[in-house]
């Protein structure tokens, strides 16, 4: 029997060490093995070491003078920028401005993308009618719409919402469509024989079966929001993390630029973690199925 992925082999060696068995690839001790799970502690340790290495590289390059501090400030300079920005009271309002912009863009996109994507996944006519224009929009760069939206809406918050919508929605709706298409057909057949109407099946079976996938899609969509945030805030904004980065650039204030980048990275990670936690909490049966 070939052991399934993720099933741990029993640890008891049947043969003494050094016999031919230990030379086969499957019983090689403690090396990198394809798909082999590792202990949680090792996983966390490797991740921490990796982060420390990046930090050490940064510190090394900046403190040694290999790269001038004007271009790459030291960690302490960035820390000081953080202290100054938060004590003068601009960091938190900027974070709030950016976060609310993203959350709004994400919510508006998702409120439209989930039902539309469901219809496209479940009904071929909706797919035929909507997929070509959506595919077209998906391949047009959202950034290219900035001049147009500035003419249409000026430097308003509507303009920023529209850009975020363009960046998020057209990808998101196609992923939701795929989530719905992946619902096993027998689930639907079964529901018919249990006497459900198509409308009931859409809500009680298709939506429910696609929901874990859809939550994953929402998480990924939120990620796109973070990617486009700075683009949106670099042009015609008066606050937000992107605006702050742009301001810092004018004064060659690299510590503040790096600070902005780090804050965006951390915020993005936090949202990602929240979605993963929500997923684990809402769909416990998914992890059981996997293990």
């Amino acid at each position, binding site marked *: 029997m070939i052991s399934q992925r993720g099933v741990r082999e029993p640890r008891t060696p049947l043969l003494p060490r050094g016999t031919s068995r230990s030379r086969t690839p499957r019983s090689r001790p403690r090396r990198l093995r394809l798909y082999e799970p590792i202990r949680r502690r090792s996983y966390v340790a490797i991740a921490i070491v990796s982060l420390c290495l990046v930090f050490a590289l940064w510190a090394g390059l900046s403190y040694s003078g290999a790269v001038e501090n004007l271009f790459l400030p030291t960690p302490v300079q960035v820390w000081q920028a953080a202290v100054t920005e938060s004590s003068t009271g601009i960091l938190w309002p900027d974070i709030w401005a950016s976060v609310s912009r993203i959350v709004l863009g994400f919510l508006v996109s998702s409120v439209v993308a989930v039902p539309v994507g469901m219809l496209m996944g479940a009904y071929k006519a909706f797919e035929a009618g909507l997929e070509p224009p959506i595919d077209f929009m998906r391949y047009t760069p959202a950034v290219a719409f900035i001049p147009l939206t500035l003419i249409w809406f000026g430097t308003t918050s509507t303009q920023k919402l529209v850009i975020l919508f363009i960046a998020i929605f057209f990808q998101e709706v196609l992923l939701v469509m795929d989530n719905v298409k992946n619902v*096993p057909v*027998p*689930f639907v*057949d*079964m529901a*018919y*024989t*249990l*006497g*459900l109407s198509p409308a009931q099946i859409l809500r009680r*079976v298709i939506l*429910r*079966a696609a*929901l874990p996938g859809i939550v994953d899609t929402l998480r990924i969509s939120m990620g796109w929001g973070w990617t486009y945030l700075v683009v949106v805030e670099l042009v015609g904004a008066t606050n937000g993390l992107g605006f702050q980065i742009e301001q810092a650039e004018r004064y060659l204030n690299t510590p503040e630029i790096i600070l902005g980048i780090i804050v965006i990275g951390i915020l993005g990670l936090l949202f990602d973690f929240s979605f993963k936690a929500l997923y684990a909490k809402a*769909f416990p*049966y*998914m992890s*059981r*199925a996997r293990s």
Partner: protein
Amino acid sequence: MTPRLELRGVEKVFETRSGPVNALHDIDLTLDDGEFVSVVGASGCGKSTLLRIVAGLEQATDGVLHLDGVPLAGPGKDRGMVFQQYTLYPWLSARANVEFGLQHLPKRERGAAARRFLEIVGLLDFADSYPSQLSGGMQQRVAIARALALQPSMLLMDEPFGALDAQTRSLMQELLLSIWERDRLAVLFVTHDIDEAIFLADRICVLSTKPGRVREVIDVPLPRPRDFAQQMDKDFLALKLHVRGLIHDEAVRNTGFSSVLK
């Protein structure tokens, strides 16, 4: 007496890119109340299509289908279905899966029905388990409970034990018979396993291939209640040999084996 299920001249033609394919031709079949009928045939004979037509999941191209004398139109709760694939909803517990088709009942009655039918399949202790926590055989037992809970006029089973290992399958057959002995529901059971077809059924309907048509309907002379030891009886083996002969010739002719087998 009107039969429970009556099929007359049922025809099914699939439109494919390479032209129409006649999957079923002129199928006549009746099931009386309390009768257990197996449908066997080589792969591709359309036996699953036939069952899906009776379930209302496919539309017959032509022919008459009556359930208790009333023409069949679309799927419905009057026919409880068990599929080969595991079709329990993974986000629902075993209990909630059984209750799923009973939304028309008040909550209390739903719970009582779920308990009763889980007990019949011997899984009351697993009422709160999710499908991923159950073995394949247990999942199919819950699926049977879910079909029975609808209180249908008949059961439709599409190779329900086909994905199970041989031991579990034989236990499931005995379980199904013991449930069936209680209230003698009409059952239409599709399988490619000849032993299974004979062991369970009162009559066997052997389908030929391309197009699927009724080759022979055979009475199973084995007394009830059945016991797995009967599978070694002379009658059983003679019948098995006969059915196997019917299917074997078909299979050899239609699957390109004829060039390598005699």
